[in-house]
């Protein structure tokens, strides 16, 4: 991350409290997103991703801190910056009683796009997203995957530079998910910056950069690769009838660093394969199952928060 490239999104010291809520939904969140990146906000439900998303979409004003989009404050009056922002919400924003075409025309008009340039842009996007033959169908009759595609077109009509997606793969079948990711990659290739929220590990793996959120706080940031390397080595996960006794035994007899996460005994080690025979020799009778794995983003989450990702 070089300082000379201006950031597409820069967030500093963001705090947010919902009216009447006792705790902060976001507590001192800082991160920046470079231009042309796919940036993922990963976290369990209720971690604060969606709140942060609302702030970025300018629907909600932060209680404290600053947000800069392309170096500018999006909360200035007259919403001039909103032209640079394309927002795809988690819950559908299509009008189910209107046709695909009508949905797109009305959305274009909201952004001041009219006449032949509007028609051209709509046709171009319908073609690109293979929706030309659905133009005159009511949005409510389309499948979830197709509706999501129309949502994406809606957000791209005014050719925004920054695209925000809230849990874009919610409600999509595996095929539609692959399709979605092809679109996301295509957008990246055309120079757009994409920020998406997700609670799916495999989706987070595909991002260039990640910020992991837990209980309103940012617990880790970096590329998926770097984050996993940070955990390093192997992860051994053991289940047992008496996890606590097993933990004490392994610590005292083998000198390994052991933690208990949700009743499972978890060992981060440099040489998992050679540790397994030693473990079996010392306490094989107490172990019910034993799993050896390379660290995943879930392990990163566990290491940073001490909680299982769920």
């Amino acid at each position: 991350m070089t300082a000379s490239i201006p950031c597409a999104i820069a967030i500093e010291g963001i705090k947010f409290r919902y009216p009447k809520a006792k705790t902060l939904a976001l507590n001192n969140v800082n991160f920046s997103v470079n231009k042309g990146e796919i940036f993922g906000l990963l976290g369990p439900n209720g971690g604060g991703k969606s709140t942060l998303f609302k702030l970025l979409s300018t629907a909600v004003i932060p209680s404290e801190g600053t947000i800069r989009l392309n170096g500018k404050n999006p909360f200035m009056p007259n919403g001039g910056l909103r032209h640079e922002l394309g927002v795809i919400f988690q819950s559908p924003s299509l009008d189910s009683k209107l046709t695909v075409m009508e949905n797109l025309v009305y959305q274009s008009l909201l952004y001041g796009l009219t006449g032949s340039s509007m028609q051209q842009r709509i046709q171009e996007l319908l073609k690109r997203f293979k929706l030309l033959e659905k133009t005159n169908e009511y949005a409510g009759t389309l499948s979830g995957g197709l509706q999501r595609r129309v949502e994406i077109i809606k957000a791209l009509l005014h050719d925004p530079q920054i695209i925000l997606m809230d849990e874009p793969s919610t409600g999509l079948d595996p095929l539609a998910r692959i399709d979605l990711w092809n679109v996301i990659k295509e957008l990246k290739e055309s120079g757009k910056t994409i920020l998406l929220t997700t609670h799916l590990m495999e989706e987070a793996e595909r991002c260039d950069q990640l910020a992991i959120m837990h209980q309103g706080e940012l617990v880790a940031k970096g590329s998926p690769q770097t984050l996993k390397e940070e955990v390093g080595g192997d992860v051994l996960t053991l289940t047992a009838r008496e996890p606590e006794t097993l933990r004490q035994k392994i610590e005292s007899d083998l000198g390994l660093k052991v933690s208990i996460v949700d009743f499972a005994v978890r060992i981060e080690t440099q040489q998992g394969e050679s540790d397994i025979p030693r473990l079996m020799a010392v306490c094989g009778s107490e172990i019910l199952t034993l799993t050896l794995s390379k660290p995943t983003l879930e392990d990163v989450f566990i290491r940073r928060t001490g909680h299982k990702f769920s």
Partner: protein
Amino acid sequence: MKHNQEFFWPAYSLCKREVVRFFRQRSRVIGAIVPPLVFWFLIGSGLGNSFRGSNYLIYLFPGTLVMIVLFTAIFSTISIIEDRREGFLQSVLVAPIAPASVALGKILGGAMIAFLQSMIFVIIAPMLGASFTFLGFVFLLAILFLSAFGLTGLGFLIAWKMDSTQGFHSVMNLFLMPMWFLSGSLFPVEGAPMWLKCVMLFNPLTYSVTAVRMGLFSGNFIVLRSWPGPLFCLAVSLLFCAVTFSAAVLSCSKKTIGENIL
């Protein structure tokens, strides 16, 4: 140019969508016209014999026209609650649009629906003995449109903060129906007891009903000398529009720190 982009086209978009959606849902079209018609026919016929000297069906007609406007205008603003619940409003609220444009688009759309619905009823008016001069007809159209705009604005104000249509219906019954009862639709202001008369004189709908009556029967008799006169009614209707519209703009542009507008 920029003004067009952030004001005119978004308002046009929201307004047109409103009208298209309404006429696509046949039950809503019928629901706004038939009940007032039935109401008018039953009450008018039933009470007619008890009213001496004049035809009550004809007396009730202007009020019924205003009731159609009231029903359609108010119910069209339920779409705001639906838009919020179904998610459509999300994309409107993050678009680069002036709040006044959101209010204007929604209110104008609802007002046009209400105005068009009342026109269907105006067509049958001559069959009931109404005859209007050209000026009277223009006046009638102006009053109907202004009433539609003002009432949709009122509906917008009520609906903007609400998250359920049930709540909307209770406000309708508690507040809007009495507003219609006390507008001179059912009984003339002059005959009401003093306290009721005071309430009726502060009710903007009283002036709508009076003006619609003047317009509908402009060819039958001259009403210029009576109070309130046509210009006064027009002024009250304009003021009603201005007040509700400004309040609607204020309520949808309020965006304080920490407030969640989605």
